[in-house]
């Protein structure tokens, strides 16, 4: 159940204040992008965006729109800070990660602004925990400049078809090669590991394929270690859209339905691997 925190001293209002009946709506999405310790949070009137980056090659964003929250208010146009995602997740799940049906942790989040810590008030079964997490100067984020007009190939797949494939990816391969084409093999995931090569082909007329818009044959390789964390997002999602642009940048967008049936999104952007070597067949 939501509850209100005491108002800020001297009548100031919080730069960001939000209430959420079920903290899992937030924590499960954050886990889907938790492959680095730190994240950059951006709060705007539309909601909260949490960004994690690695190696200047990969960026993951979790979007929790304002409508998911019971209360969501941002004073300025936007509020941005860097925070330890590991600590944030530990706090959000302080009452444990497994839940009995019918119980949930209620959350109230307050941020007074630049230089202040993020305050979390968590309540479950009458027990209240107050957390104060230090914030830092936000990092400059990568801009993949990925917009729908630049998309060369796009497919939308039901996540069910990819989950097992991603979970069983041959991690002895350095790269994951993605081929998208209007002709055979249409959509192919390939690895080149110690045992040999493996290819996973999805035909365009497969039941799993919700949309298939490939205009050009493209084959791109991405460092598998960078993409592997996206498996978490895939596991939560019901659908995934896979898009590439002319430079071979990859956009993976996952549609996630939370416990209450509301839709949230997680996206991953990845640069193609520069060391191009001949693909084995």
């Amino acid at each position, binding site marked *: 159940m939501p509850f209100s925190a005491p108002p800020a001293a001297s009548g100031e209002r919080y730069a960001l204040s939000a209430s959420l009946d079920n903290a899992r709506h937030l924590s499960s999405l954050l886990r889907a992008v938790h492959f680095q310790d730190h994240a950059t949070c951006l709060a705007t009137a539309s909601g909260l965006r949490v960004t994690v980056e690695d190696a200047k090659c990969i960026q993951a964003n979790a979007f929790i729109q304002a409508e998911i929250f019971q209360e969501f208010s941002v004073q300025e146009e936007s509020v941005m800070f860097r925070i330890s995602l590991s600590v944030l997740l530990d706090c959000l799940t302080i009452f444990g990660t497994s839940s009995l049906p019918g119980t949930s942790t209620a959350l109230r989040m307050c941020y007074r602004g630049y230089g202040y810590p993020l305050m979390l008030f968590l309540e479950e079964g009458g027990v209240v925990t107050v957390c104060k997490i230090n914030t830092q100067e936000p990092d400059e984020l990568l801009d993949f400049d990925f917009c729908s007009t630049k998309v060369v190939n796009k497919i939308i797949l039901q996540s069910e078809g990819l989950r097992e494939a991603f979970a069983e990816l041959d991690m002895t391969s350095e790269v994951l090669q993605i081929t998208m084409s209007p002709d055979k093999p249409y959509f192919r995931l390939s690895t080149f590991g110690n*045992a040999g*090569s*493996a290819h996973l082909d*999805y*035909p365009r007329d*497969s039941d799993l394929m919700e949309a298939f818009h490939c205009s050009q044959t493209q084959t791109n390789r991405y460092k598998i270690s960078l993409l592997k964390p996206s498996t978490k997002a895939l596991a939560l999602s019901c659908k995934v859209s896979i898009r590439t642009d002319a430079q071979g940048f990859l956009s993976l967008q996952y549609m996630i339905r939370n416990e209450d049936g509301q839709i949230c999104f997680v996206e991953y952007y990845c640069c193609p691997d520069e060391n191009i070597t001949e693909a084995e067949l």
Partner: protein
Amino acid sequence: MKCVIAGGNVKGERGLGPGERSVPAEPCLTPHTLSSSPVLGRAVHSLSRIGDELYLEPTESGLSLRAVNSSRSGFASFLFAPLFFQLYEPGSAGPETELFRCKVHMKSFLGIFRSLPSLEKSVGKCLILLKPRASRLVLQLHCKYGVTKTHNLAFQECERLQAVFDTQSCASHLCAPARLLADAVVHFPPMLAEVTLGTGPGGKISLRNYVEDEAEPSKTMVTELWLAEDEFQSVAVTPGSHITFCLKEFRGLLSFAEASNLPLTIHFDEPGRPMIFTLDDTVLEVHLVLATLSDLQSNSQSPSTNGVSHLPAPSDDFADDLESYMVAMETGEGDSERAPSPTFPLHTPWPAQREPEEEKEEEGAVPGTPPHKKFRSLFFGSVMTPGRPGVATTQEVLAEDSEGES
């Protein structure tokens, strides 16, 4: 070589590609075996309990998958008859060339069939294609939703891997439903290495964990269970006989037998001679051959030991033949271990009376890994080093693991 394995209960399977013949669609399967791809997967899992390399040998009578353990004391083979496959083309053997055979890393092959439930649920057809010129073994799984998984595995050419054994020459035979044996072995600790099968009064069959002589009786747990003759489908045993074999390797076959619901036949003879487990089906023949612990007191065939007396065996009868003696010399560091109990010879009929020169036959199939450690753990560990899991650990070491002792 090319073969296609029919799938199970998978909808939306694509048709055969160009160049692939199909046979009439009814499953070429007996009531025992259900969908074929999971059967192949389970066979691979079973074989992975034996060795690190999977040998593939296409023959006219079917595709044989085999494995041998590093100490050459365990061998398993699964022969899938042509009828098991929707399509089976072993390839052509010329007058001077044999049918192509190869071996692959077990891990790589196992990785393809790792998840048995998903094999059952989502894999339809499985195509196995050997491409000698590209040096690739191609495994293609046709899955649900039209998805195709293609694995191109590197392989190595190899010599024929064959253990010679003869079930007819065994004195004792037992046939039991897999369930019975599975229920029996569940009582033994998972890490237990050896177990002794014995025949007792009234036709009862006993199973008992093997305990080495040096272990202190008061600190060792012994588990023994008796099975009545009528629980078996057939019993033809020498009364008062017993035989000790490696349980770990047997468990792999047992899971397969249980899943396939096939009765298991056990053939054994005197201690020291190989024990053979077989499963039979119209489309599948499975053999597991395990070396057994030789009896200290037994007078098994005294070999020509070449008078290599610096192996301080408690009795020379321990080594049954020259070949295992040679193995012991290769494997026994410092020459101070007791002679191993015999491995069954490869390529030679049992009992062995052959010359050392004939060993060249097995060179081709010798795996790179030195066998001695594992070998020791099978037959030395139990005798030399008490305190392994499964037996009550003793604080003191009763047998030093080095020179000059017995």
